[in-house]
């Protein structure tokens, strides 16, 4: 019997005779009565998205002074693709760059399957990536939040582990890389929460990329009884001798079984890579798409209660509008693949997962002076009103289908809402509200419908 199977069967057997379990909050069992779904996948999409090219489907019409409109996000939004000046697709041999749009994955766009809040606001703080991402996972605008600093207020991961009784491997944050302090988003520095309640984290393009191949692939697997038992005994003795409070290698309170499971996952993913079995999207030609591919492997293996995945390629818009369009199109492709994978490849999560998609912030209305190969202007994000204009999309059980809530004249929703929305879905909203640590204007999006 493989060790993973053994652990699973042991866990099942243990579950049959389980005893009441007191959560760190002092409550017996996790709150489960009001769950809308057992799993949540939150996509941080995808590095600062301009409203004009996403929700408004203006393509080149409200950026480059060209009268060409169309929808390049047809897995997420309903609308016809542009017919002219197509540069966002792939490049068949000998043809114009980007001329071939990527085929849609979802026959029914997500806005028809679920609810779209087309006019959400990033209402406070500067529209920077880390502040935006931190707001997304903590529900609190870190007005004084600095780079290289963990979120000041607790993250949804910590709320879920503390109030929902989730294990460490039930909550995952998947980063597009290790830059911009992204690895710091898996837990806050709040004294009542912190690393004891953190999410597990991978920046899979590094973990499983060339660097991971050099320093992880083929790592030695010690026999669990004959080798690991004496190793752990020696380690315990050495740690006991050291025994200084708080002086330990940083960790996330994964149990020994969870640590072994993560290592098994790392080894299995390298094997699947070698055998071309990783479920990458049909087109995988940038970092966001490979990140989503590895995310599907995490979903398949761990079936997490909460997965937050960050994409960022759209941020190439600082220097190249053409690259921005390509990345936006690929972000949509990635989301379509992710949702399709959940519904077709993970039976435990099918029809039991709510996916939420939200940009961490928007982009400016006016361009910067940089032009690209098509002489198109680039766009930054420096807190102008347009960069505060974002959207949120939800799809899954208990999410009303084909519903739009809010308009430009009547914006509904805030970037800080996502934490309470996830808490609402997973049955811990009241606990999170009671902490008083989310933005005072934040609400569950279900309460805004």
């Amino acid at each position, binding site marked *: 019997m493989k060790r993973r199977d053994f652990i699973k069967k042991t866990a099942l057997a243990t579950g049959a005779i389980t005893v009441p379990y007191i959560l760190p909050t002092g409550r017996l069992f996790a709150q489960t009565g009001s769950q809308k779904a057992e799993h949540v996948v939150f996509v941080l999409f995808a590095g600062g998205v301009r409203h004009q090219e996403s929700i408004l489907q203006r393509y080149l019409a409200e950026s480059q002074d060209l009268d060409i409109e169309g929808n390049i996000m047809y897995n997420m939004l309903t609308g016809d693709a542009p017919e002219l000046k197509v540069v966002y697709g792939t490049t068949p041999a000998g043809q114009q760059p980007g001329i071939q749009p990527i085929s849609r994955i979802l026959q029914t766009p997500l806005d028809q399957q679920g609810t779209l809040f087309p006019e959400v606001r990033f209402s406070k703080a500067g529209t920077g990536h880390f502040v935006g991402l931190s707001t997304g996972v903590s529900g609190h605008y870190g007005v004084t939040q600095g780079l290289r600093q963990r979120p000041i207020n607790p993250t949804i991961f910590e709320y879920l582990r503390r109030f929902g009784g989730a294990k460490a491997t039930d909550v995952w944050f998947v980063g597009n890389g290790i830059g911009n302090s992204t690895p710091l988003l898996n837990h806050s520095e709040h004294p009542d929460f912190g690393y004891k309640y953190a999410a597990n984290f991978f920046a899979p393009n590094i973990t499983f990329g060339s660097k991971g191949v050099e*320093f*992880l692939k*083929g790592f030695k697997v010690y026999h669990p009884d004959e080798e690991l038992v004496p190793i752990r005994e*020696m*380690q315990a003795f050495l740690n006991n001798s050291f025994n200084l409070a708080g002086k330990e290698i940083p960790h996330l309170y994964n149990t020994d079984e969870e640590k072994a499971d993560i290592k098994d996952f790392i080894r299995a993913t390298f094997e699947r890579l070698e055998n071309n079995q990783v479920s990458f999207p049909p087109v995988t030609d940038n970092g966001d798409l490979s990140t989503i591919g590895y995310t599907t492997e995490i979903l398949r293996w761990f079936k997490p209660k909460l997965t937050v995945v960050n994409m960022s390629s759209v941020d190439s818009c600082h220097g190249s509008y053409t690259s921005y369009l390509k990345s936006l199109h690929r972000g949509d492709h990635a989301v379509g693949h992710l949702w399709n994978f959940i519904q077709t490849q993970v039976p435990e999560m099918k029809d039991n997962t709510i996916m939420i998609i939200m940009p961490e912030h928007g982009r400016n209305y006016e361009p910067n002076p940089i032009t690209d190969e098509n002489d198109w202007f680039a766009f930054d994000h420096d807190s102008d009103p347009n960069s505060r204009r974002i959207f949120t999309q939800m799809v899954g059980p208990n999410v009303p289908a084909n519903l739009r809530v809010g308009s430009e004249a009547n914006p509904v929703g805030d970037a800080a809402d996502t934490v309470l929305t996830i808490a609402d879905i997973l049955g811990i909203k009241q606990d999170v509200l009671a902490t008083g640590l989310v933005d005072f204007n934040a609400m569950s999006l279900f309460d805004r419908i």
Partner: protein
Amino acid sequence: MNMPTFKRLIPVLLVGLAMGSCTEEKYTYGVNDVIVQPTDLSGKKSKTPEQYLNILYANLYQRAMSANQLVKATDVITSIGDKQVAYETVISKFMNDPDIILPSEESMRNDPESFVKETYQRFFVRVPTEAEKTWMINFINSNPDVTPEHVYYAFAIANEYYFY
């Protein structure tokens, strides 16, 4: 005694003192060679990933890690949230490398006391206490399947190794 009388006596007193000091026995003090290093366990600072990896590599390979390797290995550690998992996985990858330099099992079994002392010195940069030395020797002697690699692995993943 008036002042002129006292002045006349000063030379006599000085001569007396000088003669007395000449007869005093001379002593020469020396010190024995002692290895000066801490035996307490109060590590204060945690190593950065770069420090940890650099020192680990030097301990296992007995040569320095290249700057390029160090950057890449640090990125890998950063890419995994649970650092215990990250370090254990990287260490076990090193352990699979035929280039690492480990003491032979024979040397460990023949002289476990020296092996234990050297291992503490190598990883923790200190001498073990008597209790630590005794426990480790007993453990090695009572576990015939334990290898130097297992001991090195246990030391490398111990909390003390992470602090300096």
